[in-house]
Structures are given as structure tokens and as C-alpha cells.
């Protein structure tokens, strides 16, 4: 937990009825986590820029009729935030169910089975079935890279891979093509990964991917585990250097 020094820039707010002090400029998500208040996220990853795409961290703020993404909303003096409510719970479930319905997430035969943030989120949100019809899109697996694999069937478009590739590795091999449900991760100008001239093969994208979309080649069912601890350290060291 980061210690908070009470200065003139300190502000106070309430999260779930608890009085909390924080530095100005901190996001609701940061402050909540510093105070052991859990807000679910999928696209957020410490060390990468905030994306605000998955909408799982939506919270209620007293006086505002709409919901706010906790990862992208800075705290304000006197703010009263609610991170749990029947409405939020229902929306979060709905979002994850829609992620499952959108592509082909077959946990039982996925290489990330047992080590998947999407799967864990479904368990956490007590999702026992999906109320939406599955789309069953026909999506390809890009197995052209020597030791990494992109399975579009398992991708939730959190773009952690795009961010780590551009922001941390500096390669910007990965990006997104298309819109809406047709959006997809691409390499360079939508080439097979193995033919990319810019990919350094660092593997950071694989480690930050929350699901079985980006994995090591050669892994069998349930064998893929991700190492995400490197990212905050890497970011911290770079900041210290600069």
C-alpha cells in the first residue's frame, strides 16, 4: 500500500461509506485498491496506460445519474463512491456474459484453463450461465510465430497487448483493426505474426494477456501460466532512470 502524506493537495472522499484520504489526481480505482476495496477489472493493468475499455470497474458516484469507470475517474473532494450495488453487480455480470457470447471461450479445452482472468472473473461474479445467444464466430488461430500464438477465439479486446507492445517494448507491432464485434488484434499491417518485421519476440504481450488469446506455442490444455509481476517493476525502473 502506498503511504499517503496529508498535504494541502490531499483530498477526502467516501468509498462504500468509508472515509478515505488520498492525493489529488489519484483515480478511484487506485484509492480503492490502496484501501483494500475490491473493484473488478479486466483491461486495467498496473504499469500500462489507462484504457477504460472493459467497463467492469464502473462505480456509482452520488449526485451523478450515470456510471463512471473507476480506472479513469480521478477522485474529487467530498465524492461519495459506491463500488457495489445490485445495479453494478448486474451490469458486471452482463458484461462478462457478453464477452463469453461474443467469441469462442471454451474453458475446458483452453490452454489457459485454471489460469485465466476472464474465467476467474466469471467465478467471482457468480456467473453460472450465459443469458445471451453465443455468436460462434469463425475465427482463425495465428500460429505462424516461432514460439507464440494468437487465438482470436479467446480474445476480449482488452488491448493490454497493444499497450505493452507500444508503451513498454516500444515496438508497436500490435494494433486493432475493424470496429465493434469485428475488431481484432493485428500485427503490423495485418500480416501473419511470424512475418512481422517489427516484433522483437519479447513475449510481454503473452504475459499481459488475461486469457488464452496470447500464449506460448506448444502448451497443452491448462498449461499456460502468465507472469505479470514484471510490469510494475519495469515501469518503476524506467521512471527512476528518467
Amino acid at each position, binding site marked *: 500500500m502506498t503511504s499517503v502524506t496529508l498535504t494541502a493537495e490531499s483530498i477526502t472522499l467516501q468509498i462504500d461509506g468509508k472515509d478515505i484520504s488520498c492525493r489529488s489526481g489519484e483515480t478511484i480505482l487506485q484509492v480503492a485498491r490502496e484501501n483494500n476495496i475490491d473493484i473488478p477489472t479486466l483491461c486495467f493493468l498496473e504499469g500500462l496506460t489507462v484504457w477504460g475499455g472493459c467497463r467492469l470497474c464502473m462505480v456509482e458516484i452520488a449526485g451523478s445519474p450515470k456510471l463512471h469507470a473507476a480506472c479513469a475517474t480521478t477522485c474529487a473532494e467530498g465524492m461519495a463512491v459506491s463500488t457495489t450495488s445490485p445495479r453494478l453487480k448486474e451490469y458486471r455480470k452482463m458484461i462478462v456474459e457478453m464477452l463469453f457470447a461474443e467469441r469462442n471461450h471454451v474453458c*475446458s*479445452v483452453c*490452454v489457459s*484453463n485454471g489460469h485465466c482472468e476472464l474465467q476467474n472473473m466469471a467465478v467471482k461474479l457468480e456467473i453460472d450461465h450465459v443469458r445471451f445467444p453465443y455468436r460462434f464466430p469463425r475465427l*482463425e*488461430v495465428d*500460429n*505462424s510465430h516461432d514460439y507464440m*500464438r494468437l*487465438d482470436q477465439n479467446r480474445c476480449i479486446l482488452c488491448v493490454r497487448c497493444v499497450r505493452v507492445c507500444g508503451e513498454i517494448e516500444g515496438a508497436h507491432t500490435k494494433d486493432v483493426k475493424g470496429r465493434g464485434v469485428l475488431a481484432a488484434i493485428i500485427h503490423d499491417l495485418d500480416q501473419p505474426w*511470424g512475418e512481422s518485421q517489427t516484433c522483437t519476440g519479447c513475449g510481454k504481450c503473452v504475459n499481459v494477456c488475461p486469457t488464452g488469446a496470447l500464449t506460448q*506455442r*506448444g*502448451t*497443452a*490444455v*491448462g*498449461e499456460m501460466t502468465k507472469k505479470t509481476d514484471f510490469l510494475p517493476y519495469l515501469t518503476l525502473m524506467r521512471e527512476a532512470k528518467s
Partner: protein
Amino acid sequence: MTRTITIDGVTRIEGHAKITIHLDDAGKVRDAQFHVTQFRGFEKFVEGRPLTEMPGIMARICGICPVSHLMAAAKACDDILAVQIPPTADKLRRIMNLAQMVQSHALSFFHLSSPDLLFGMDGDPMRRNIFGLIREHPDFARDGILLRKFGQDVIALLGGKKIHPAWVVPGGVNAPLTEETRDTILKQIPEAIARVDRALDYFHQVEDRYPAEVDAFANFPTLFAGLVTPDGLLEHYDGAMKFVDHNATPVAELSPSNHSHYGSLISEAVENYSYLKFPYFKPHGYPAGIYRVGPLARLIVAERCGTVRADMELGVFRTRLGRAPQSSFHYHWARLIEILYGIEMIQRLLQYPDILNTHIRSRARPNRLEGVGISEAPRGTLIHHYKIDENGLIRWANLIIATGHNNLAMNLGVRQVAERFVDGNKLQEGMLNRVEAVIRCFDPCLSCSTHALGQMPLRIELCASDGEVCDVLQRN
């Protein structure tokens, strides 16, 4: 007036099927067919998936015999990787495969078939089931249930869970055996052997009660096929695929290095009344190339088992029935012998000094674009055949499932039993139970074989040639 009796679906089997019995004007059986009415389609939907996922995906074909599909799929992947798996991994895979056979055979014999044998083919259907067994023969039922548990426990101890363990991977297995696990399994062996011994004692007593069934339960000469060791012994994981005739005389053999040429010996026909394909021995043509696989076939193909107790029992079997008994009724006895063999062999494998080695996986990238894996599932020889593209994605798959090999024999068997026992002028439940019981001898796993699940109500209709229903028997 010709009529048709339909048994839809067939009960106490694994999967969905129906039987139609066609009667002539005099009410005598003219023909009978066994229809597999479900469709799975694994061959198609694995297309585009990475090779390394295949064992995990293919295991999902079945909840009873997932390990069999794990083995055949992993072997096909090993073939594509062109690797020899470490000797310890080979032994560990064998142990799991045998444990699978023990649990599946126990399910088939005790849970599904033994009610027919204990209560009689014409017994009260309300008693003639596993619950009747538990009520009236609790010790016998307990032995069956605990034998199955033994097999399932071994699978779970090795692979982490009883059903669909992800432990078998291309190139070997993904976790070594611990000393503690080995000792836990070894401790259970004597009790498991005692349970099979009791079941065999019982079987010896009842076997003679069913001469008419022995005589008419798919009792005809066919070829038999199964894997054998280089010494001609019983084999379930890897070995030459051998065909013998009805006298146990060798007809053809495919060495392990030639498994990819299985197409020279086996071809598949289709019929418009079943989703299950009809494999046949190619050199003899269709349908003359009828052959059987499974426990009985394996005991006919093999010279002997290779373990002490199983060989003693096989001696009794052959003394009483001859070298190559043709009636499929004897599948039951063969199944019990294989349970005994399986337990003994698990014990032997666990006692190898290298069984605890931690080198259990060979790693390689695909080195071939095509691979075949052949192993023995409880029901018989299982063939997985894959083709991949240069990126290691599956582009084509062909599965020949054990139940498929027996399809021609099951159809002929159904007809033989119907001709012998069914009187179209007066339907009786026991007649039709025999028609189902012949299918149970083969222990078909239909969910595996066509790539569906569901309830199995039994409804038998007698229909006039104009479709008018003359008589109906219904069982829920």
C-alpha cells in the same frame, strides 16, 4: 403384412441408439438393424485448432473413456512431433490407460450388464438394474462400484482429476509420479484383485445358465483385431495391430512403425440408417470383412496375457470355451479377465525403479505433417489420424472408434438374437431385453463413436405396413 418393431432407445448402454426389427407376414423376423441416432462431429470442429490442444479436446469426446482418447490423440501428436517419449512417461501413460480400462470394464460388467445375468433376461425390469443389484446383492454391487472407484482413483492420483485429466500431453505427461502416490496405489492393489476374484467366482456359477444366449448372442465366425506386444501378448497402449480369423490364425499385422498404413487394412462404409460408420477389413471387402474388437477379440488375438493371475484365468476360459470362442456373450468373461490383467499390470509398472523419474516429457515442434495414434480403448482398437499445416494447425482428422469396428457384428448380432427370441405375434419385454443385451455385450460407447447424450426411454411399436401402430410397449 410386414411389420416393424422399434426399440428406441436402447437402454443401459453409453449413448443413444435404437433397434428396428422387421417382421414378415407370418410375424417372423426378416431383418434387424442397430441404428446409432446421435451425432458428435469432432472430426470437423477440431479443424483449425493447434496440434498441442488435441489430447485435451479429443478427451471431451467421452466422459466414460476420456483417457482412451487422450492416449490415441497424444500418440498421434507424438507421431507428428516425431519424438520418442521418455520411458517413464510411456509407463505412466500405460498405467493411466489400464486404470481407465479397469473402471470402464467395471462399469460395463457390474452396472450395465450384470443385472441381466443376476436377475435373468426375463427378470422383472423393476429389479433388473443397478438399484436392484444394490438392494438384493449388496456385496456384489459394492465390489463393482469399488473396482470402478479403484480405476478412477488411479486416474485422479496421476492426472489430478477422474474425468478429463489434462496430464497426458504431446511428448509425454506433464507431471511426474510421486513416491507417496505410487505407494497409495500399490496399497489398494490386493483388495482390488480380491474383488475381481469374487466377481469371477460368481461369473463361473452363472455363465452356464445362459446356453441359449451364448448360442445366439452374435455367435458367428468373424475376424478379430487388437494390439499385441512383440511377443504376441495382450497389449493396450502400443503394439502391432493384428487381425486373426475365427480360428485365431493370423491374417494380417501392422507393426507400430506402420500404423499410418491402417488404411491398407481398414476401410469405412456408410449406411443410411446409422450415424455410425461401418469399418471393415479391406482385403475381404464389404460386408464380408466383418471383424470384432474389444476384450474378447484381444484375448483371441493375443497368445496370452502376460501376468500370472490373468493367464491362469485365461487358461480356464480357453479350457471351457476353446481358443477362439465366437459368441459375443463371452465378452463379459473377457472383460473380467482384462480387469484382473489391468490391476496386475498396474502393480508391475509401478514397481519399475525408473517410475519416479522426473524426465517425463520430450519437447519438439511438429516434424511431420501427418500422424496416427493407435491404442486400445476398453471397447477395442482406437485410431486417431491427424493432418496439420506448416503452422501446426489441424487441417483434417479421422477417428475410427472402437464401437465403430464392432458395428457390422452388432448389426448381425441384433438380427441373430431377434430371429432366435422375438415372436412378432406376441411381444414380451424379455424378448426385447435380449436384443438389447447383445448390444451390451459389446459395451458400445455411442457418444464416442459418432461424435450426444440424453435420456433413454424405451418405446417399442409394432407397426402395420401402412404405418398403423398395432401394439406398443413402453418403458420409462
